[in-house]
């Protein structure tokens, strides 16, 4: 054991109070304080004040945050007032700052999350109304795909070609335009060799792209949903989620290829 230090720097005393010393220096300060009662009292006072301030201000860190300090809302508010093109540009710019995972956080947290929920609800209603047990599920049969695409394009104000899922074993029966709370939407209906139906619901949306395809419940069936290039998609049918995801990726790849 070394001799108690006869002198300790002011800096070390504060470091001791604030628990910023390594064990060796802490021990030296403790030894010093044992031999210098007046200094020990001073340090005890500093400590007591430190604990008092912590206790007094602690409630403010525990209080629920007001909406004005909700970070997801602040991020969304920066994107909202801009028009579509600007909005996407802003999302890209913000993406540079926050990185890919940050973009995902943003997309999943608020803007696109809410838009996707709405989209899936609409898809569920359309699916339930037109797909199972319906005598005439389609307005336009696949016999005239050009007329179908033209009709859908004119109603949605967007070029939207029915995805071709024949390679995956699904034949296009046809499609229809359905009304939603956010304008017209297209519902394309397919059947596989066993007659199992599959539906692709799509409509334009202002919401930002989702970074991933989300697993969703579409009414009673499983589904996949995503937003890309201003179109929201929902794919649903009596299939496993893995199969629906595979089909969704197929559809997304086709849409990308068509630009």
């Amino acid at each position: 054991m070394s001799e108690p230090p006869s002198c300790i720097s002011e800096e070390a005393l504060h470091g001791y109070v604030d628990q910023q010393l390594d064990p060796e220096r802490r021990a030296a300060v403790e030894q010093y304080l044992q031999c210098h009662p007046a200094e020990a009292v001073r340090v005890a006072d500093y400590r007591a004040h430190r604990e008092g301030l912590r206790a007094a201000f602690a409630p403010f860190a525990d209080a629920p945050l007001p909406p004005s300090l909700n970070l997801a809302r602040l991020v969304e508010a920066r994107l909202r007032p801009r028009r579509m093109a600007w909005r996407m540009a802003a999302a890209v710019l913000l993406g540079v700052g926050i990185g890919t995972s940050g973009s995902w956080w943003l997309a999943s947290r608020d803007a696109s999350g809410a838009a996707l929920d709405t989209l899936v609800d609409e898809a569920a209603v359309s699916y339930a109304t037109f797909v199972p047990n319906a005598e005439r599920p389609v307005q336009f049969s696949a016999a005239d795909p050009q007329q179908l695409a033209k009709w859908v394009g004119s109603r949605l104000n967007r070029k939207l070609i029915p995805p071709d899922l024949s390679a995956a074993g699904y034949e296009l029966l046809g499609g229809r335009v359905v009304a939603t709370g956010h304008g017209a939407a297209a519902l394309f209906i397919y059947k596989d060799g066993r007659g199992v139906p599959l539906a692709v619901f799509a409509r334009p949306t202002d919401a930002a792209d989702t970074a991933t395809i989300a697993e969703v419940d579409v009414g009673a069936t499983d589904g996949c949903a995503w937003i890309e290039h201003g179109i929201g998609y929902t794919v649903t049918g009596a299939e496993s989620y893995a199969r629906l995801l595979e089909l969704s990726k197929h559809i997304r790849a086709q849409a990308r290829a068509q630009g």
Partner: protein
Amino acid sequence: MPDVLPRIEACIPALRRYAMALLRGRQDADDMVHDTLVRALDRLHTRRDDGDVRAWLFAIMHNLFISRLRRHRLGASYAAAREPEDVAVAADQEGRLRWRDLLNALDSLAPEQRQVILLVAVEDLTYAEVAHVLNIPIGTVMSRLARGRERLRALAAVPEPARPGLRRVK
């Protein structure tokens, strides 16, 4: 790059506590935190990846606080101008009474000393981080901390249970 938005979000309660300790008005404090977050989002793309998010946010808030002091010419007269009910800090009455002397003493410190004490004692920043946040040399951090603590000690008695057998007579 690690997810910066969740890390910013995790700092909001501490920013709010610090703003409240500096300003004492809930609305003022929340406004300053709001402005800090907006400015942080503005500057995300210029932020260096290696910096600590917490120190970065406190530094932004410090700059806002300084321009606020200049704008309102608050300085030393700030405490006197504050509405009385804002001085009552803690949410619970008991805590408020218990720490009343200490909080009044804190209010009487120069803003520079108050900031150092709060960042060190309440926010657990290291001395080096405080120097970075306030953009001052670490020696200045230490001298402000020492002078601030001595002043608190001269003004505020330590409650009995915290210092058995000793009582300061004011």
